[in-house]
């Protein structure tokens, strides 16, 4: 960063041991065309404020650790370049999550919801001796897009419904569940739909669509949610029909 160019970043700081509320602090950073926001944060931590806290790991948009709000939009700090913000920018922690310290948020809700939707193959009785469980390219294509999620949480920061109701399972978790519902090797769809077809499941979604807009991997959570609604509706209709059938059967047994 030998370049002389300087840029003003306003960074949200919060020290739980000292501050009653977060506040914005101005910092000047040197930059060139290759400087990402993660580089800028690392520069500040190394040279200006060693106590600045933020999460990061891979620097290449694959680990999903460095999600922050840049000028109010959820972004991966490593995938967003300073050169696109010539007038400076504001960096804040992801919204809709509690702030632990500086740019670090508490993702507990998100992680619990992923677990709740059982994103793994269920009910497949195949054994290693049976050989590989093959799929056709068409079978893969049904869920490929939805398997791109890196659990960065940007879609939760983009989702006003999660903001309004933190019990909502949210975009990424439901997308992951849907990814397994669509997998030809999986048999857990009905089990997952029990969790999806609830007030805080898919029905909290109102198709705002911003989740798909901000997703750095184009996993399209908004599409997954709508497809889950359709699946939930179908399974609901089937359960109503089954209920009637069962009633008829039990009625028939009595008479």
């Amino acid at each position, binding site marked *: 960063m030998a370049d002389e160019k300087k840029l003003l970043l306003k960074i949200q700081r919060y020290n739980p041991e000292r501050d009653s509320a977060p506040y914005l602090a101005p910092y000047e950073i040197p930059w060139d065309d290759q400087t990402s926001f993660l580089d800028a944060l690392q520069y500040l931590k190394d040279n200006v404020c060693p106590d600045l806290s933020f999460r990061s790991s891979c620097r290449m948009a694959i680990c999903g650790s460095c999600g922050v709000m840049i000028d109010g939009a959820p972004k991966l700090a490593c995938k967003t370049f300073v050169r696109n913000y010539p007038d400076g920018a504001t960096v804040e922690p992801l919204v809709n999550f509690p702030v632990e310290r500086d740019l670090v948020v508490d993702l507990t809700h998100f992680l*619990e*919801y992923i*677990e*709740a939707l059982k994103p793994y193959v269920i009910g497949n009785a195949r054994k290693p001796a049976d050989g590989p469980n093959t799929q056709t390219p068409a079978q893969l294509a049904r869920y490929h897009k939805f398997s791109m999620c890196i659990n960065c949480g940007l879609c939760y920061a983009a989702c*006003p419904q999660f903001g*309004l109701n933190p*019990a909502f*399972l949210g975009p990424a978790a439901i997308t992951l569940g849907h990814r397994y519902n669509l997998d030809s090797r999986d048999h857990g769809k009905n089990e997952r739909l*029990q*969790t999806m*077809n*609830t*007030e*805080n*499941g898919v*029905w909290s979604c*109102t198709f705002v669509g911003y989740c798909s807009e901000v997703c750095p991997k184009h996993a399209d959570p908004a599409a997954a949610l709508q497809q889950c*609604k359709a699946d*939930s*509706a179908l399974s*609901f*209709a089937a*359960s109503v029909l089954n209920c009637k059938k069962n009633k008829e059967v039990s009625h028939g047994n009595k008479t």
Partner: protein
Amino acid sequence: MSNHTGKQTKEPVFWGLFGAGGMFGAVCAPALILSLLLLYPYFGECEEAGLFYQFFKTGVGRLFLALFISLTAWCGLHRIAHCLHDLKMWTAGRARLCYASAALITLFSIIGIFRY
């Protein structure tokens, strides 16, 4: 870990009606509004009114319009119910009020088929 195997909702019913109304409205609403609300004073009232206006004197026409009225009401009021949630307004009984209104409009539209 929070319990998310909560009770199954009846939301699919309302979502189905919302979807049907939304699709019906997307295809038909612009044309119906143009014809019945904007052009009616010019072409619908005179002696030799356009064929389309006479369509609503037939049973099929009235059934079609009643279907449009009730489905768009379900679609619109479903969205309004969610919108009120978005705006943090009217928390108690919001959905019930909206869906009851839609049911009422449906009832009246059915009566309306036979009232000419």
